[in-house]
């Protein structure tokens, strides 16, 4: 039993770690790579905004909010599945 426990705890951490890495990659793209290239993106237009500007004032922010909600939804699934929820 305790072996099984230890195993599911290990799997839980592996899955949590993978999820965290994915989240941080998405975060890095919209926090740094997109704003870094704002000049080039400004050539494109979105809802009347220059695209680079749009991301810096709204687009990246919306993605951060959505990212946290999605991450938490997925993390809850992982916790439930491996029986380590509170």
């Amino acid at each position: 039993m305790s072996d099984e426990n230890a195993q599911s705890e290990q799997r839980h951490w592996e899955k949590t770690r993978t999820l965290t890495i994915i989240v941080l990659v998405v975060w890095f793209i919209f926090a740094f790579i997109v704003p870094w290239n704002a000049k080039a993106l400004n050539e494109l237009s979105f809802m009347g905004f220059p695209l680079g500007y749009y991301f810096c004032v709204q687009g990246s922010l919306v993605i951060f909010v959505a990212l946290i909600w999605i991450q938490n939804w997925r993390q809850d699934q992982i916790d439930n599945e491996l029986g380590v929820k509170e």
Partner: protein
Amino acid sequence: MQGKFTDNLGKVYGIYTLGFLGFFALMAIFEQLGAGARLIGIMFLLFTIAIYALIGWLSRTTQVEEYYVAGREVPALYNGMATAADWMSGASFVALAGGIYFGGYPYLGFVVGWTGGYVLVNSLMAPYLRKFGCYTVPDFIGTRYGGNTARFCAVVILVVASFTYVTAQINATGTIASRALGIPFEVGVWFGIAGILVCSMLGGMRGVTWTQVAQYIVLIIAYLVPVIWMSNVQGFGLIPHFGYGDAVQRIAELETTLGVGTAPTEKFAGLNALTTLHNSPQGGYDSWRFFTLALCMMAGTASLPHILMRYFTTPSVRSARKSVAWSLLFIFLLYFTAPVLATLTKLQLLDPQLATSVIGKSIADVNNLAWIKNWVAVDMLKVVDSNGDGILQINEFFMRSDIVVLATPEIAGLPYVISGLVAAGGMAAAMSTADGLLLAIANALSHDLYYKIIDPKADTKKRLMAARILLVFIGVAGALVASLKLTGILGAVAWAFCFACSGLFFPLVLGVWWKRANRQGAIAGMVLGFLSGALYLIYIQNGGTQIAGLDGLRFGIIGMPVSLIAMVVVSLMTPEPSKEIQDMVDQTRLPGGKTILDSAH
């Protein structure tokens, strides 16, 4: 009402919100009846502060767990509101839109940085610290790495970062109080600190939590209502947030015809003329400036103890995560509105096709506008005729960046009652942040320094007495420093972020994410990271050459890598942590089970 207070939160804050809106309507009627702007401003401040004080008094407590972590019974949604108020300081409320107005693209690093940081909080910190069950951030460092030295280092960094930050907030409360109540700044500061202490002294974290929820409601109404109202009066649409792209493009056209970028020939201390283009990223160095600023602000967010400790108050690990999500949503509401405000206000001043424009008009006409007169009288705005042609040019119009938020209602011709609302919102923003910071400092000193290091045998009564005395003492010290007016509000805020991320970011993250991290490594990381950042700041403040354009807003870029390298190298050179500690890290990573520290620790 039946049941516990926490069972009735929806009802209580629903009634409170309606009451506040009712008060707003009442003031609007007063204005129609002929009440002056001054009286309305005073009423707004006194009414809201009286309510916060009442909440603070009702939340008084003698329990340790209630004093330090609000009894760990704050639901995710409300903790999200409290965190948002804790987070959004006087600087966010008053200075952010003005910064965007004057700073252009590089300044947007604040907007992205101060929201994106929450992804780090949620991914790397909040759930694990909640599972740990600590009362303060140094409590985590002290237990995870063991020993008083590590704990003490964390306390020192916390105090330096938070104290830098809190003086800026007390400064902001003083500025707002002095303007609304018509008292000198030095008196306003003491008025502000009195209001702040009433909220936190009796109830500790419990009092601060429930006042912060109330303060969030006031500050978000006070930020959104003027912008949306202005947009409707000036014809920018019902909800302007999604349709101001045209305004951004129109500003770009006007910048060419009006000659934005021509340096002014005169200078006035504290006032700026618009010289930076609204949206003109240059790539290269410009992108680097954005990146470094955003990175420091994000890592700082995830290391600032007054934010992290808010997530200690939720009932469970899951609700801690959920409340990070709510926090960011509530913060987002203000941060995606600030650029709207900056853009539309700029367009109103610049566009000759709009009735509100001033650039290109005759100087005499501009000087006759009521709102110009008001702000010139308090030295926050200046209109000069440098080239003597009688026409106002873009580089002849100077203002303090705070004006963008404070004067928008007047520029757009809204009633005075809106200005009163904005004053109440700014006060709520500054007070709530100051409360969180003061409590973070006082709790670290009373719990970690006094109880854990100096007198571990102290009983509950003595510990809480120490906590309260320290709170008052630090509040007074903060007010004294604030009344010296050493740095601008925004400068001091950015310093706090850089201090926090230089010293605390990696010791906190690696404490959870790297089992091999040990005491020696953590101490090296904290000491060397913090010192290298601080010494670099002192060096450039005294006229040293900046490395790669890293100024006082970005010195975390120096501190963080030093901290990381020192921590990894020293950890690997010294023995790995004991089996006990490694098991503790494993337990921290699991949401279920008992907390690492129990409530009697």
